[in-house]
């Protein structure tokens, strides 16, 4: 139940990767092996472009979401970067970004954004993610883009968590740059893409052989890219079924609410990814919960996986104004296309057990 950290690789993607690993060739070679690899690469580019309703020529393959964000932020080299406070670390840590806050609902504050842009007219890049990795809350990207463009700024949309879970239309969103990761949608790790709108001027962060229209040097990871494409296709075709995962998620949340009136779900009344639930069990630390769930054979996480080595209160929840105590007791449950009702039953059993133990401990006389 940790699909937002990484998803199982879809069978279609495994098949594509395996086939491509058996064939080989450097797509830059002119001989037959090279041309076959080139064809696989360009077919994949079309498929990934389709996922975000873009032209194939706008897709640059990278080694993953982090590189895509780094390329967008460093490659546009804008005087100012304004990022929402709930962006992923790969957005916040690549440049010195000015932070635009989110409302208590966890949605980027558009009025504040407009204010910041109006006060300083240097060329800017605005970064707003499409869906938050911890809460699943969907951000008003199209509105943010419209504001950004009014002030001559570019908009970077980190769609790593959203792609494959909801429909993503890069041109309709008005995104100038949009980041994608394969492994979050059931493709292999080590592959991602950056959508670069035709008018955007970008400089590479990796110099070299001039691959990817001189925007990203390095021999293309053809098997990984083929796997990305196969997963993108499966995800795109499965969007309707994916939306139905909300029923499982909602069942989970209402059962938690019945068990524990003091439990808190973040963003329940807002447009959210169908699979994500961020919920707090007051009085029990996130770390304790994660370990207890692991013992029960359930994988959940406290915050984002990258930083989950060190358990700290969720930066995203704190940005939403949630107090430290509550933020410290939140976990993220993220379901996927392989999740079923029995997973929810197991989760509720474990959650209920832990909650009951907490209540017993709380009511026990002090020794």
């Amino acid at each position, binding site marked *: 139940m*940790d699909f937002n*950290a*990484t998803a199982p*690789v879809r069978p279609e*993607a*495994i098949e*594509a*990767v*395996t*086939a*491509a*690993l*058996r*064939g*080989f*060739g*450097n797509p*830059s*070679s*002119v*001989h*037959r*092996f090279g041309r*076959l690899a080139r*064809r696989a690469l360009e*077919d994949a580019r079309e498929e990934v472009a389709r996922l975000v309703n873009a032209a194939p020529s706008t897709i640059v393959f990278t*080694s*993953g979401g*982090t*590189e895509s964000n*780094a390329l967008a932020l460093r490659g546009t080299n804008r005087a100012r970067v304004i990022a929402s406070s709930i962006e*992923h*670390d790969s957005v916040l*840590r*690549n440049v010195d970004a000015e932070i635009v806050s989110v409302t208590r609902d966890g949605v980027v504050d558009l009025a504040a954004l407009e204010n910041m842009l109006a006060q300083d007219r240097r060329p800017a890049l605005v970064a707003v993610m499409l869906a938050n990795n911890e809460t699943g809350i969907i951000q008003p990207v199209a509105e943010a883009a419209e504001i950004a463009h009014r002030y001559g700024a570019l908009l970077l949309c980190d769609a790593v968590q959203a792609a494959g879970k909801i429909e993503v239309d890069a041109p309709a969103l008005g995104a100038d740059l949009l980041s994608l*990761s394969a492994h979050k949608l059931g493709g*292999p*790790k*080590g592959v991602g893409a950056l959508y670069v709108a035709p008018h955007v001027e970008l400089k590479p*962060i*990796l*110099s*070299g*052989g001039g*691959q990817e229209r001189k925007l990203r*040097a390095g*021999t293309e*990871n*053809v*098997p*990984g890219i*083929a796997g990305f494409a196969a997963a993108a296709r499966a995800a795109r075709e499965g969007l309707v079924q994916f939306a139905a995962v909300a029923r499982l998620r909602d069942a989970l949340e209402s059962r938690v609410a019945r068990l524990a009136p003091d439990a808190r779900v973040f963003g329940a009344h807002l447009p959210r990814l169908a699979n994500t639930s961020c919920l707090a069990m007051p009085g029990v630390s996130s770390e304790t919960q994660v370990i207890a*769930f*692991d013992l029960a054979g359930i*994988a959940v*996480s406290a915050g984002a*996986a*990258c*930083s*989950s080595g060190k358990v700290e209160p969720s930066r995203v929840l704190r940005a939403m104004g949630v107090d430290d105590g509550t933020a410290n007791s939140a976990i993220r449950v993220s379901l996927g296309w392989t999740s079923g009702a029995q997973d929810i039953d197991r989760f509720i059993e474990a959650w209920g057990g832990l909650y009951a133990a907490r209540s017993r401990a709380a009511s026990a006389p002090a020794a």
Partner: protein
Amino acid sequence: MTTNIAIATPGNRKMPVYLDYQATTPTDPRVVEAMMPYFTEMYGNPHSRSHLYGWQAEEAVEKARGQVASIIGADPKEIIFTSGATESNNLAIKGVAHFYKERKNHIVTCVTEHKCVLESCRHLQQEGFDVTYLPVQKNGIIRLEDLENAITDKTVLVSIMAVNNEIGVIQPIKEIGALCRSRSVFFHSDCAQAVGKIPLDVNAMNIDLMSISGHKLYGPKGIGALFVRRKPRVRLQALMSGGGQERGMRSGTLATPLCVGLGAACEIAQKEMAAESERLHYLRDRFYKKIMEQLPEVYLNGDLEQRIPGNLNLSFAYVEGESLMMGIKNLSVSSGSACTSASLEPSYVLRALGVTEDLAHTSLRIGLGRFTSEEDVDYAVSEIVSHVKRLREMSPLWEMAQEGIDIKSVKWAAH
């Protein structure tokens, strides 16, 4: 969408004979086998430290790190996984230059380095760094005196590749390392073409940073590594920041199957290097001898002795390069590096050796490797010999040369 690539394994006779092992190598089936479980069952995020899926992945990644370290005599903690040698080279060169820029601003490299090294250096020049590009001798190898003279008290980094990707020549890495250490300059070596082909030891050779590629040593594409020495410590500025993985030097979720693949490829190469090297020596010598016996006016580019066994780079005089490539379409060879092979520009590496333009235009890079058979070699030789002979028969220049006319002395009338 068609993701199925025709099964292009070497030895499949419906496909051309693959002789381009410096462009990329087929992934060893044993490597694929090692990778597969990490696609199917153990797909965890290696950075998810709180559950079993994550632990399995982390354990696999750490094992792979040890395998990579072992083949170059490094400590596993000194290995950073990257997306490939291009990223490793960029990270080493730009990363070190940026980190130490307050104190030092000079880099020494060599004119025959891989594009990504040269382009990284050009990028730094645009930022105001000084770069010295060492020339090479006719055999493709640098002069140590040139290097010694180029190093100043402003030099932060020397970047010299171990094995050239076009001509396969081996630079005197140990001597370069000793020199750099004695002058307190960091030594980076692009070893994409060297790892698994020649013995390497980062301590004996005083290498401070080393770039490694997966797909050049029968591992997967999309993965590489950078060795970053801890004692004396080398520091660098990251090219991509984020989750702080790889000790902050390289953020991004690690691709467990790719790490496992690179590790397995290193382990296999380490075990089999000696035997493989001997076998390839035999095949390469057989190839070279047969060509030289049957064709006059063929020139080897780059030193024959200081060279990896799996490479030949030959120029065929009096033959038009494009026609030769068209003729031998049953052989997958290249006329330069893969990156630039789509362009018709003659190789900058050959030009740096002083190879004349016409000979540079008729060069073939022949890369032999793990799956090349004696039969492949003999077939390739017969193809090349027959096409070169055919093309020469049609060439007026060849005819003149046969009549003893020195082509260079001919003054061509302008039309």
